[in-house]
């Protein structure tokens, strides 16, 4: 077994970038009528930023401020969001 065979069997571990993943959903069930706002929320994952979320949700990273303004109670610094935070997407 040569060195190349060993490399093939044990490929170097790399961490894929999932920052450009697009996601969505819908339901046959109606949306709650008594929910504040649109009811749409986004849960922050590792590597997210407000502009990344804006890009994903609106297709425009420059709309990050809309998300920031809707979540001023949660976000003190727009450059600091944390995995697990549940943000309202207006």
């Amino acid at each position: 077994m040569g060195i190349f065979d060993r490399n093939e069997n044990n490929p170097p571990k790399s961490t894929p970038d999932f920052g450009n993943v697009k996601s969505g959903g819908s339901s046959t069930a109606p949306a709650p009528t008594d929910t504040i706002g649109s009811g749409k929320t986004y849960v922050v994952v590792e590597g997210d930023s407000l502009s990344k979320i804006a890009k994903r949700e609106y297709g425009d990273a420059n709309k990050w401020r809309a998300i920031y303004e809707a979540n001023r109670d949660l976000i003190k610094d727009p450059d600091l969001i944390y995995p697990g935070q549940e943000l309202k997407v207006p």
Partner: protein
Amino acid sequence: MHTRLRGTSLAALALAVVLTTACTKSREAPAATGTTGSTAGVRVSRIDMGRSLTADKMINDKTESFKPNDTIYASVLTEGAAATATLKARWTYQDGQAVTESTQTIAPTGDARTEFHISKPDGWPAGKYKLEVFLNDSSAATKDFEVQR
């Protein structure tokens, strides 16, 4: 006299505490969005996966093996009714690397299907993935799938 005054003050203080607690609870109630009692009757009964959906959110072509350029759909069947329930889909890669999460808030009146989908413009890395579905922040079901080149 002194004792009676102290007793009256204590009674007033107790009343104030009760009223304050009641007011606080009534203000906090909307924030909870019925995550406890009103959703107790809902449960996740099944997850199907595939590459496309029917109009009623069922999977057309069930599979757990995808190609890098596929849009990956998951159809979550819930049973029961609730004024509000939150379904969260957490997608992870291999040993737990976060892919993405998304949430749907629903008010089911009976059996309902909620779909979640993900896509990646430059293609999915090959490997094993996992979808975990949470109902009101409690893990309700998981589904393993893979992407093959």
